[in-house]
C-alpha cells in the first residue's frame, strides 16, 4: 500500500525540513555562515544584535568588513570587551577570518549591531541582512529571531 508509506513519509519530510530550518546555513565561496540569529526585541528596544558562526574553509584569509539590512538604519560590527567586571561595547572595522578557522559572533563577544530598528522583531521572524566580505563579496542571509536559551547555553558563551 504505497499511500500508507506516503502518509507516514510526509510528516517525516516536513519534520526534516523544520530541523533544517532550525539550524540554517549559507555558503559563499570558501565562507560558510552557520545559523545567523537574533533575539526578539523587548518593547521599545531600538537596537538588535546579530550572531552566527563564520567558517573560512579556504586557504586564504578573508575579513567580514560590513553588513547592511533593510530592517535597520544601519548595521555595525561590534565587539564586547570585558575588563574585570566592566563591559564595554566597541565598533570594530572588520572581523578577521583566518584560513581553516571559525569565528563565532555570539552573546558577550562579536556581533552585528542593528542600530535604529524600523520595526520590533517578533519571535520566529526572519531578518534580512547582507554580509560583506573583503574577498568573498556579498551574501544575503536571514537572522532567525529566537530566544537566547534556544541558541546558546549560558555556559557556552559567558566564559571570559
Amino acid at each position, binding site marked *: 500500500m504505497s499511500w500508507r508509506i506516503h502518509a507516514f513519509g510526509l510528516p517525516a519530510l516536513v519534520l526534516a525540513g523544520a530541523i533544517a530550518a532550525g539550524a540554517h546555513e549559507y555558503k559563499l565561496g570558501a565562507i560558510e555562515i552557520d545559523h545567523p540569529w537574533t533575539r526578539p526585541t523587548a518593547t521599545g528596544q531600538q537596537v538588535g544584535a546579530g550572531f552566527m558562526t563564520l567558517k573560512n574553509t579556504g586557504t586564504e584569509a578573508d575579513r567580514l568588513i560590513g553588513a547592511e539590512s533593510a530592517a535597520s538604519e544601519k548595521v555595525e560590527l*561590534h565587539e564586547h570587551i570585558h575588563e574585570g*567586571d566592566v563591559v564595554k561595547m566597541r565598533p570594530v572595522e572588520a572581523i578577521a577570518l583566518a584560513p581553516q578557522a571559525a569565528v563565532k559572533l555570539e*552573546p558577550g563577544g562579536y556581533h552585528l549591531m542593528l542600530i535604529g530598528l524600523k520595526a520590533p522583531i517578533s519571535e520566529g521572524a526572519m531578518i534580512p541582512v547582507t554580509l560583506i566580505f573583503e574577498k568573498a563579496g556579498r551574501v544575503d542571509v536571514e537572522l532567525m529571531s529566537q530566544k537566547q536559551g534556544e541558541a546558546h547555553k549560558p555556559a557556552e558563551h*559567558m566564559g571570559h
Partner: protein
Amino acid sequence: MNDWRLFPVMFLAFACSLTLGATSALMLPWSNGTAQASAPLALTAATPSATPVTEPQRKVPIGGPFKLLASGGRTVTDEDFRGRYMLVFFGFTFCPDICPTKLDEIARTLQALGEDAKQVAPLFISVDPERDTPETIGDYVASFDTRITGLTGTPDDIFNVAKAYKAYYQKVALDDQGTYTMDHSALTYLMGRDGTFRKLFRPDETPEQVAEIIRQVMAEDKGS
C-alpha cells in the same frame, strides 16, 4: 578572574591608612567568584594570627538610599523594598546584547526561585538617563518579566545610586552623529530585607547558581 577595579583609589587610601605592618594584606572577601563564602561587609586587614587587631575595622558600604522613577513617573525609593530582597543591577535599553542577556537571566532566576521569588524585588537601574525615560525602561523590562522593576532618574539621581553601589559607568561616543553607548559594570547585588548588602554576583554565574545563593541567604535569615 578576581580582578576588581571598582575602587582602586579606595584601595590606595586604605593601604596608606593601615599601619599594621608590611605583612598585612588587603582582602576583598565578597569578590570571591564562587560566592560560597559568606560575604562580610567589611574590608578587613589580615594580620598575623598572634597579633590582635587594634584598629577599628573600616567599612566600605555597598548600597544606600536612592530615589528613582519607575513606569508612570512613580517615585521609588529603597525603603519601598524593606522586608524583601533587592536584586540590583545596572544597564540601559540601547544595549543589544549584555542587558537582554542579563534580564533574561534574571527572569530565569525568578523562575528557579518559584514561590521564593515573591520575596525578591529585581531592580534594573538605567545608567543612561538621557535615553531611558520611566516609560521606556518600564516597558523594556516588562518584556522579560513583569516582576522586574525598571528604574531611571535624573543624571544626578543615577550618579548617586551608582556611586552608592560602587558601580562604574561611562558614556562613550560611537560616531560623530551623537550615537553613543554606555560602558558599565555588569555585577548584580543582593541586598537584604533591611536594605544592607548581602551578596555580589559576577556576570558568569548562572541563574540556577544565583537562585541557590539567594535561597541560602533566605535560610540564614530564617535561622537567625
